[in-house]
């Protein structure tokens, strides 16, 4: 088998992470094969004793949470470091774990990336800290995302139940109806583009996270994971629904070829070029800071449905706080994660614009009745909370989803720029994901 250098490097990183997990299990004292339970008393004692906690996270609202936490526990210092966003941080974390040096005590990890770390035993199981008792606190989507098998590997920090953001000004101008089904969405896309050839229903250049969320909502369950046994199959009815519809948009060039999160994208959201955005409920904060010009133009609507009258949604994005096995100050680390994600920190973070994963907050009147001046006073959280309650069950990501998403553009992405069909693109993605899984030692069932 020939491997190119990049793949080889990744392989090495994974292998060394695996062996590391193994040695850590066998050797070191604080993470012996069976993690010993950590009682609330242990945690209290650690908080009184104090210490410096190293946290790697890019979530901006944690800054305030860390400051509050320090105030409450004067002997604890929280060293909050932004070690990069998303994949950049995972690379850094992988490097630190491979080198066994500089591993943080707490790390922010997105749901789709968590499986990789759980599988390689790079993270502490959290049940021994008492996390299993928190199960009822979280909405089911995020809680399932932090579990691998029966074990809990992280505490959900936020969630991204999907909704449709739409530019009301554009919709009003061209007298468009807000679509409630994906068929209507395609029709709206056509009408809009006909009325103004410079305007598009949405922007997409092929991005793994969005596509998997769409598949999720359409009822497709392409990934089945059982330990190191993996099944990848994009040929179910749900996937077909998605490719059929999205293919129509691509064929008629109804999607703006603008890469998400670039300055062009922000510009398009502001000037009416991009008329809708189907994404996670964490988006409002980005609208407020990144698209100031369009304040008042946008509204939120429920995600369009595949069948009229249905209410199924999906999650997009969202992340958790986990405790790397090689980190230190375990008790402090858990105390911080719990404070930020289940304790007082949640309210602080909601105030700063984050979207919670805790049911009590999602269902509270104060939360649901919050009016968003940016959305013309709309009580958008009602829509988000309803979406959170209707997330399709039984979805799982691959244990190497970070890699899989990184090759999305080489495979499915072709459908966006050439004559390749979206369905063929998905097939190519499936094949490439299977091949990589086999190379990494997974048992892949096709």
């Amino acid at each position: 088998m020939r491997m190119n250098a990049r793949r080889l490097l990744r392989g090495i990183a994974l292998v060394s992470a695996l062996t590391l997990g193994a040695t850590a299990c066998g050797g070191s004292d604080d993470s012996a094969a069976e993690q010993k339970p950590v009682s609330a008393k242990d945690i209290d004692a650690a908080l009184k004793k104090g210490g410096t906690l190293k946290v790697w996270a890019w979530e901006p609202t944690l800054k305030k949470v860390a400051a509050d936490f320090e105030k409450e526990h004067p002997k604890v210092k929280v060293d909050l470091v932004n070690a990069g966003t998303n994949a950049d941080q995972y690379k850094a974390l992988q490097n630190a774990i491979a080198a066994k040096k500089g591993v943080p005590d707490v790390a922010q990890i997105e749901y789709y990336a968590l499986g990789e770390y759980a599988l390689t035993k790079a993270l502490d199981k959290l049940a021994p800290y008492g996390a299993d008792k928190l199960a009822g606190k979280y909405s089911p989507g995020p809680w399932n995302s932090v579990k691998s098998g029966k074990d809990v590997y992280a505490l959900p920090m936020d969630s991204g139940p999907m909704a449709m953001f739409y530019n009301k000004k554009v919709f009003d101008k061209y007298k468009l109806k807000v679509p409630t089904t994906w068929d209507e969405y395609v029709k709206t896309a056509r009408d809009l583009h006909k009325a103004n050839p410079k305007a598009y229903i949405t922007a997409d250049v092929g991005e793994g996270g969005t596509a998997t969320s769409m598949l999720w909502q359409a009822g497709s369950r392409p990934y089945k994971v059982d330990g190191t046994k993996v099944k990848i199959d994009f040929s179910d009815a749900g996937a077909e629904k998605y490719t059929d519809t999205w293919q129509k948009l691509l064929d008629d060039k109804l999607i703006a070829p603008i890469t998400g999160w670039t300055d062009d994208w922000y510009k398009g959201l502001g000037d009416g070029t991009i008329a809708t955005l189907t994404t996670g409920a964490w988006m409002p904060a980005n609208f407020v800071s990144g698209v100031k010009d369009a304040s008042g133009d946008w509204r939120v609507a429920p995600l369009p449905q595949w069948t009229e009258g249905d209410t199924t949604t999906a999650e997009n994005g969202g992340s958790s706080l986990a405790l790397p096995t090689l980190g230190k100050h375990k008790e402090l680390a858990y105390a911080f994660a719990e404070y930020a994600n289940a304790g007082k920190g949640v309210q602080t973070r909601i105030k700063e614009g984050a979207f919670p994963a805790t049911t009590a907050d999602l269902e509270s009147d104060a939360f649901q009745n919050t009016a968003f001046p940016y959305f013309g006073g709309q009580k958008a959280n009602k829509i988000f909370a309803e979406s959170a309650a209707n997330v399709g069950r039984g979805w799982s990501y691959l244990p190497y989803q970070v890699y899989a998403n990184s090759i999305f553009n080489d495979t499915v992405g072709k459908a966006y720029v050439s004559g390749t069909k979206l369905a063929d693109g998905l097939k190519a993605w499936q094949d490439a994901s299977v091949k990589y899984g086999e190379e990494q030692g997974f048992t892949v069932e096709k």
Partner: protein
Amino acid sequence: MSTPVTTASRPAPATSGAQGSAPRLRGPRKRTEGRLPRRSVLLTVLTGLVLLYSLVPLAWLVISATKTQEGLARSFGLWFSGDFALWDNISETFTYNDGVFTRWLLNTVLYVVVGAGGATLLAVLGGYALAKFTFPGKRAVFAVIIGAVAVPGTALAVPTFLMFSEMGLTNTPWAVIIPSLISPFGLYLMWVFATEAVPDELLEAARIDGASEVRTFFQVVLPLLAPGIVTVLLFTVVATWNNYFLPLIMLKDPDWYPLTLGLNSWNAQAATAGGEAVFNLVITGSLITIVPLIAAFLLLQKYWQSGLAAGSVKE
């Protein structure tokens, strides 16, 4: 009009083989000085294009730095928007995130002074020694240097990271400074320069007069090498100032970031849930970042031009 063109296009021959091409460029010009300069429409147009090519991005940067975050999205890239926000942008750049930009600026200065300064010092010492002393293994050293010039630093970054993390040096300034101290190209340049610029007779004279080797080096050789030193210094300063990949993998603590990494992290902020888009600060920060480099080039221009040419013409 023509002066900026020649300076702008000069780095290219310099990197590919300064010793060979520089004299040929300068030679004929000296000879034509007495006569009327020849004009060529084609050349003027070509240099004009090159000038445009190198100045347009700069113009975009300067213009964009005067816009607010909203203004950037609202207006055409190569012209001003209604509100002139340059001063606001500059002051916000320095105060945003508790003034972390200043910290990054000081970090960069530290890496440049110690890293590039050290690299230049080592290159001068080594280049002079290789040029003027014979010792066993000199040919091997030559082969190693030529080989090292050919290996891009990027290729060595990951192995260096693994080595440094063994030594516990990652996430410290040393992780950036130590690799910056090595400049094979600078050493090679100093070697060639010293061979030509320091006459053997002069060294012999100094020795006969009883000067020690150290004194000879500092009082006789260094002044002769000055143009070469400035050239090497400029190369290493630019390389260290713009260094991105090495600090990227070495540093995780934003407190030790150089400007390049810091600006990138500000840019990445826009691409995360709940993050604040600060494109106006990224652009203004970039402008502030390149100002010292431009200043260094303009101020040291005279030295480094003569540095490239001197030593290449045999008397």
